[in-house]
């Protein structure tokens, strides 16, 4: 055999294998199993996280298999490519045959063919014409063809003759969808952009494989404002950004966008995706913890780090939130949502200090009975927000007098020489009250006393030189946008529509065929009624029976199965 021919035979075998159903089943199962991996292994995280999670050996194994961006890895794409090849092969092979089959409706049947039908009835009649008329009337909407051979009449009725179009549509649609997907990946982009209120931005960033890349848009987006609306329960109801598109220095379009309602400009869709702090101005009040009663204020911004030259202590502000709605109910109690007010998050570092993450609230904590429990912090020694522990400070630092009272009390305590602890506290507190408030005692002085005592136990223990509390703020949000251009999308929609239509045809419009074969047999006429369907035989069985009862009942007293 010449090599050319061998190759041809080989190619033909491959092509046949590609278009076979067993390959389709195998491909579908393999694809589904492969897809599982990417749902178990979180995709597109930072490489450092992966390295930490898996250790170097597995990290490099997974990385070289492309498992961190699995759905775009070469082997997954190859699988999809095989699916496309397989679909093309089976379409190529089947379409001509199916088109021919759909057209040909030969009424004639051989005896051997008749014997093979699963649905068959046979009876005698003496009025063939009425029978045929009833047959045609019963099968309203069917297509008929007739022929006569050797005195035998063959009447064929078809319904759903175009059923195979369902198959063609479904499989072409899948091909179209895959092509659309490929177009999207090849010619489209999608990335994130964060724009602080009042500023503009023109670059998006996205992950490609294992690295972050940037892309310049042909226009600028300015965020004029960002707003959040809340439900009465405190849950967010709506995120709304007011955006202006600036194209070549000209403002061309201003519009609000919310989640589910994007903006469309020059083929690029702009979506509301997230939000965050856009660098709010933060004013801290530093309460010195060296018993000097000294305070000072500093101004900084979110994402900035303020550094104290004298002590080497630094405050890195990481976030600010004007509302902090928490469920204050214990487990099992009805929910009780309350807003704890503005809070700033920062990391405090310094020479000889363990870095801690702190969330400091501006307002004191007012418990469910309306009692002021003093200012408080959430402190996380690990730096992880999940490890926040509440840390009550005792005194209410939003009230300047309590800070003074604390110091006066501390002073009187250390001056006092009384041995009895209870008595010493009482006298010191009385003296301190007099120092701060004069003769007019505040109404809730008992609570203040308790809290001051608490502060005396807590504040001197703190290792930091001072305590930064939130004094004032001027909030700025950033709006997190997602920008996407997807030229393959419309191809996918066309494919999807064809897919659904094709499936409806394939599943719900089966091709039903019925034959009436009438052969004069002496005085009587012998009638045979046979039928077949290419899908859903159970429904056809009852329909076949119904039709048989109807036509046989009217034409023959001696119907027999």
């Amino acid at each position, binding site marked *: 055999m010449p090599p050319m021919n061998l190759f041809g035979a080989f190619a033909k075998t491959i092509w046949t294998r590609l278009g076979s159903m067993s390959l389709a089943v195998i491909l*579908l199962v393999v694809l589904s199993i492969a897809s599982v991996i990417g749902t178990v292994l979180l995709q597109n995280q930072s490489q450092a996280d992966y390295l930490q999670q898996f250790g170097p050996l597995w990290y490099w194994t997974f990385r070289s298999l492309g498992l961190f961006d699995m759905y775009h890895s070469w082997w997954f794409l190859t699988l999809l490519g095989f699916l496309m090849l397989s679909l093309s092969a089976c379409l190529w092979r089947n379409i001509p045959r199916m088109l021919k089959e759909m057209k040909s409706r030969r009424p004639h049947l051989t005896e051997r063919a008749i014997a093979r039908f699963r649905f068959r009835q046979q009876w005698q009649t003496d009025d063939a014409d009425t029978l045929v008329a009833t047959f045609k009337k019963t099968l309203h909407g069917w297509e008929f063809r007739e022929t006569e051979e050797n005195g035998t009449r063959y009447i064929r009725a078809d319904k759903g003759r175009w059923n195979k179009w369902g198959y063609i549509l479904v499989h072409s649609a899948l091909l179209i969808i895959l092509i659309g997907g490929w177009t999207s990946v090849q010619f489209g982009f999608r990335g994130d952009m964060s724009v602080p209120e009042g500023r503009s931005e023109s670059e998006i960033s996205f992950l490609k494989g294992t690295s972050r890349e940037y892309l310049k848009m042909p226009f600028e987006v300015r965020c004029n404002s960002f707003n959040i609306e809340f439900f*009465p329960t405190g849950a967010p109801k709506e995120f709304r950004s007011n955006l202006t598109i600036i194209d070549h220095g000209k403002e061309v379009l201003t519009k609000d966008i919310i989640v589910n309602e994007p903006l469309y400009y020059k083929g690029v869709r702009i979506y509301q995706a997230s939000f965050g702090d856009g660098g709010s101005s933060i004013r801290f009040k530093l309460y010195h913890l060296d018993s000097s009663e000294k305070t000072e204020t500093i101004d900084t911004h979110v994402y900035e780090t303020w550094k104290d030259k004298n002590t080497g202590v630094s405050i890195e502000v990481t976030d600010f939130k004007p509302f902090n709605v928490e469920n204050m109910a214990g487990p099992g109690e009805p929910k009780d949502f309350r807003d704890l007010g503005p809070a700033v998050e920062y990391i405090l570092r310094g020479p000889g200090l363990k870095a801690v993450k702190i969330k400091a609230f501006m307002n004191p904590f007012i418990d469910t009975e309306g009692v002021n429990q003093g200012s408080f912090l959430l402190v996380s020694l690990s730096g992880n927000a999940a490890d926040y522990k509440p840390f009550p400070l005792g005194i209410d630092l939003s009230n300047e007098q309590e800070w003074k009272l604390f110091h006066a009390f501390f002073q009187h305590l250390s001056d006092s020489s009384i041995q009895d602890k209870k008595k010493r506290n009482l006298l010191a507190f009385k003296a301190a009250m007099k120092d701060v408030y004069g003769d007019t005692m505040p109404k809730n002085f008992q609570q203040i006393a308790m809290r001051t005592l608490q502060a005396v136990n807590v504040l001197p223990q703190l290792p930091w030189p001072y305590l930064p509390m939130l004094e004032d703020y001027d909030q700025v949000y950033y709006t997190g946008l997602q920008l996407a251009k997807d030229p393959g999308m419309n191809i996918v929609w066309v494919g999807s529509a064809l897919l659904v239509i094709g499936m409806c045809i394939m599943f719900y419009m089966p091709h039903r065929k019925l034959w009436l074969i009438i052969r004069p047999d002496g005085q009587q006429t012998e009638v045979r009624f046979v039928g077949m369907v290419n899908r859903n035989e159970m429904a056809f069985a009852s329909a076949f029976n119904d039709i048989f009862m109807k036509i046989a009942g009217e034409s023959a007293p001696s119907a027999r199965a």
Partner: protein
Amino acid sequence: MTATTVDASWLSSLNQGKIGFTRFCTYLGLMLGISAMAMFGNGYNEDAFLLQILSMQGVLWGGTGALLGLACGAVLGALKPSLNESRFALNTVPWLDGLLGMILLAMLWSLFEPAAAQINYEDQSNLVSGDIVMAMNVIFIFSAVSYIAYLFAPESFIGRVATLSAYAGVFAGGSALLLRWYESYLLDMEIGHAPVSNLYEVFILLFCITSAVYLTLERRYQAKAMGAFVMTLVSAGVFFGIWLDSIGQADIKPLVPALQSYWMKIHVPMNFVGYGSFAVACGAGMAYLFRYRLENKGSQSRMLAIFPTLDQLDQLAYKAVAIGFPAFTLATILGAAWAAEAWGGYWSWDPKETWALIVWLIYGAYLHARVSHGWHGKALAWWAVAGFLVTVFCFLGVNMYLSGLHSYGRLS
């Protein structure tokens, strides 16, 4: 399972021929009228769509649509009589009747709602829909027990009780969901939303759809013995629902911004048509395996007489998948359309999406395995059962174990 014979009661004649087709067109007109209101009326109001439908505006738009539909149906039926035999129309009308029945029931229940002053968000236990869901739970469990009893004592009376209670359960569940939709507005106009937004709500939807799909198959193919398996699955779900309720997941909660879209109202129910049908296919597969074992042991049990044959069970499973697969395909496409609108891409390989694809691929493979040779009977019955396990993971497991954008189903 014998062939259905022509049923001549006047009630069923409503669902046949000319009357059935005209009624179908009327329903269609009604729905188109309401869709038109959403698109062209005073604007679609995401916050109060149900109230919009129930207001004078909705009555006008819907009523006009219904009348136009009625007229079109009558004219078309007269012009082209074959339309009057349209199987699609005639098979759909009973479903729409059922939906109308549920709406009427929900209106009836709403008369028993507590006074506005007594309704509050923090404690929703006095709302009526909770009681109806409880009734539904009891009815479905009762139905499952009756179906199982029917297997061991194949009296037609027991069979009828089982079927009727399954119907009652569907109506209780459906009307409870509709009522819950209405109640969400009673809590607060801003909270109001369609009851397909959390695990508890979609569970009730799943029970109703599974039972309804099963009942349709039962009615058409006399496959009562299969009910023991399907309704047992539903009952298992009911216990899960009761557990969800007990840990406080049954409360009506406001919608997060990502879910405030009309897509949710079509995407989620369509998905559950798929899930429900796959559950029925799983029931048929289990029935198949059960019968297979009985036969292999040479059992002479009376049960065999009422069981569909192996071949019929095989076809019933296929039938259920044939309902579920296109619905699931459409649901996935609708999900992609929503994602395209909300997240900027129709496909993000989010775990939920990926698992939906996996489920789809597995049932696609099931359908192909059926057509190609060698794959029939027992292996496919196992496939139907295993496919449903994957479906359950897609539905529950993904929300509970994997992270992603579809976090709404997460227990909170």
